[in-house]
């Protein structure tokens, strides 16, 4: 099998090719390296990856991986992942069956007396202002990846000093709960 270059692309422009894996792992050192290393050596591409302690117990963490479903058949990705001894379970979420959210923080240059336009953008996008000084504001949006994309486009009209997105996390839509 060939090993394509790792691809860290823009998932929003290719909505159908991604798939979301919600992977429960043991909370042990090196586990993230095992998961990342597996994707790298098998040539599976990742759009984003988010890790946090899981709800059940401190023994486990949940890794939400958005995979490029075109770089490898999903069953291969799941099959290889599930062989990692520290991987406890994998839920495979098709985008239509998942609630996906992402957090975005952006610091925009703007003077104190010239903020009305930006405040309108903030208001209409559902974002919030979380930090302010005399020549810039930091705003936050927690929303769907599409909402984050839309806000990012709006912000093209402003001078963005810094922008950071977390990559998405996801859970099954209620009524679609199934695990692999």
């Amino acid at each position, binding site marked *: 099998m060939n090993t394509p270059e790792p691809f860290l692309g823009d998932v929003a422009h290719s909505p159908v090719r991604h798939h979301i894996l919600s992977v429960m792992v*043991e909370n042990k050192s090196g586990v993230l*390296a095992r998961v990342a*290393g597996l994707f790298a*050596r098998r040539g599976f591409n990742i759009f984003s990856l988010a890790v946090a302690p899981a709800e059940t117990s401190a023994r486990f963490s949940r890794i939400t991986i958005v995979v490029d479903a075109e770089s490898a*058949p999903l069953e291969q990705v799941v*099959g*290889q992942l599930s062989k990692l001894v*520290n991987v406890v379970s994998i839920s495979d979420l098709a985008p239509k069956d998942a609630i996906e959210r992402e957090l975005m923080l952006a610091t925009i240059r703007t003077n104190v007396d010239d903020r009305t336009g930006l405040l309108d953008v903030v208001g209409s996008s559902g974002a919030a202002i979380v930090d302010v000084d005399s020549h810039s504001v930091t705003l936050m949006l927690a929303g769907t990846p599409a909402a984050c994309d839309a806000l990012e486009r709006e912000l093209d009209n402003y001078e963005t000093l810094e922008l950071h997105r977390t990559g998405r996390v996801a859970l099954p839509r209620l009524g679609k709960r199934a695990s692999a």
Partner: protein
Amino acid sequence: MKITGAQALIKSLEHEGVEVIFGLPGGAILPVYDPLLDSTIRHVLVRHEQGAGHMAEGYALATGRPGVAMVTSGPGATNIVTAISNAHMDSTPIVIITGQVASAAIGTDAFQECDITGITMGITKHNFLVRDVQDIPRAVAAAFHIATTGRPGPVLVDLPKDLAQSMMEWWYPSTLEELDLPGYQPTVAAAPSLIEAAEALIRDSHRPVLYTGGGALKSEAWDELLAFAERTQIPVVTTLMARGVFPDSHPLNLGMPGMHGVYAAVTALQRADLLITLGARFDDRVTGKVSAFAPDAKVIHVDIDSAEHHKVRRADVAIRSDVRTVLRAWESDRVTPANLDDWWSQINEWRERYPLVYDPPTEEGPLRPQAVIEAIAQSSPEGTIVTSGVGQHQMWASQFWPFEEPRTWINSGGAGTMGFGVPAAIGAKAGRPDRTVWCIDGDGCFQMTAQELVTARAEGIPIKVAILNNAYLGMVRQWQEMFYEERYSEVYLSPDLPDYVKWAEAMGCVGLRATNLAEMRAAIDKANSIHDVPVVIDFRTDSSEKVFPMVAAGASNDDIMVHPLQRSAQ
């Protein structure tokens, strides 16, 4: 009971029933070598850590029990990486214990520190860095459990020196829960609906083949395979990893498929309408060009590792199970294909037309490597274990040695590791001292790990080594001859540098040489009469000899090249 971590490690290995460790000490593993003196476990002191790894593999492949290797940190650990990768590719159960620098020194570039768990992440089934002395028994027990269950493989346990030296309260896990492996579920019951779906495919087939791989050996399915094949009369092919799982003398056995496979085996797969794939993984050395492989065949794929399903070839029925369980489920008469008479008459025609052949040897030499292998086989007792290196000699050994029993053929398949043969033979002989063990080696391979013959002599492990000395890296030479217009680049080794007889003698072995047929017979007889020390025979073979049949890399199996002697007939 309070004991040291080092004592706990040895005690844990004893608990796992380990009878021999292949290893070499050094600073970080030093504390563990002390309680070893008081243990019943035998230690075989190797001359290079790669040898320890291959010995553990040879032991595992010959006995069916996990092999164990123990080395120090840093260079000791990196020296065994090749063997770990080899075991990973061939799913061989071995446990590797590496010493590590003291916990507090980890991450500081301490003397002989290296991140061996990081290095081996992609080439072990799993690995552990032990962080708490109290966890040593659990890590060892988990390592053996993981190495030997499901799809087997190498597991590495990295032990910081300070833990080996600290005190712990002895305990040993007695339940799977205590191993604390919430993500490890190696076995699953094969779904009955899939077993039935496969049965339907078998019933409907007219040209089925049992494509049998290493998984059939791992699941010890030889009796079931024999019974199933005899009842259904379905032809069997045995991959390089499966040689011996089905007797070569059996009329249903077509032999090895693949790049250097028997014509009838390769072509039966190509023309089949159903591949009953048992623990094989559609390796490129078997399939040739994948898109042209067995184009008309439906595929049943039985594999304990579901990640193998659909990886290379989409299966019509994919069953996650060990091979034996499925063959047992298929014991009933429901699972019988249509009449196979036409299929067999076609196959028998291929067999008669294109058997394995070679140019007849001349009395005065040079020797034909194939004839040397046949002569050794004929003079060897039943159940003789054969190991090999990687290259032409390996392919000839697989082709011309008649394998009648499982676990008598030990070679490096997936990784193709030159130098595997000698240490693997030592490991096999250590595990099966009752058996005659021959290593059929190449001159190039021999030079990579020959120093382990010192180990063999010192430890009283009398293996026999046949060097098929063609003075070349012969397999590479063959490719250069056939695909690079005979432009030979860096493949010549010389027949007598080194002098293999003197080298063998310097290592405490008996060294013999044979350049013609009479010397060949005499040397083999002499070797067979020696039972206390290792023997090395330098067989001077024809450099220009090539392995046939051959499917060129990337070519379709339809374009198989037969031996020149058979070409006019084609």
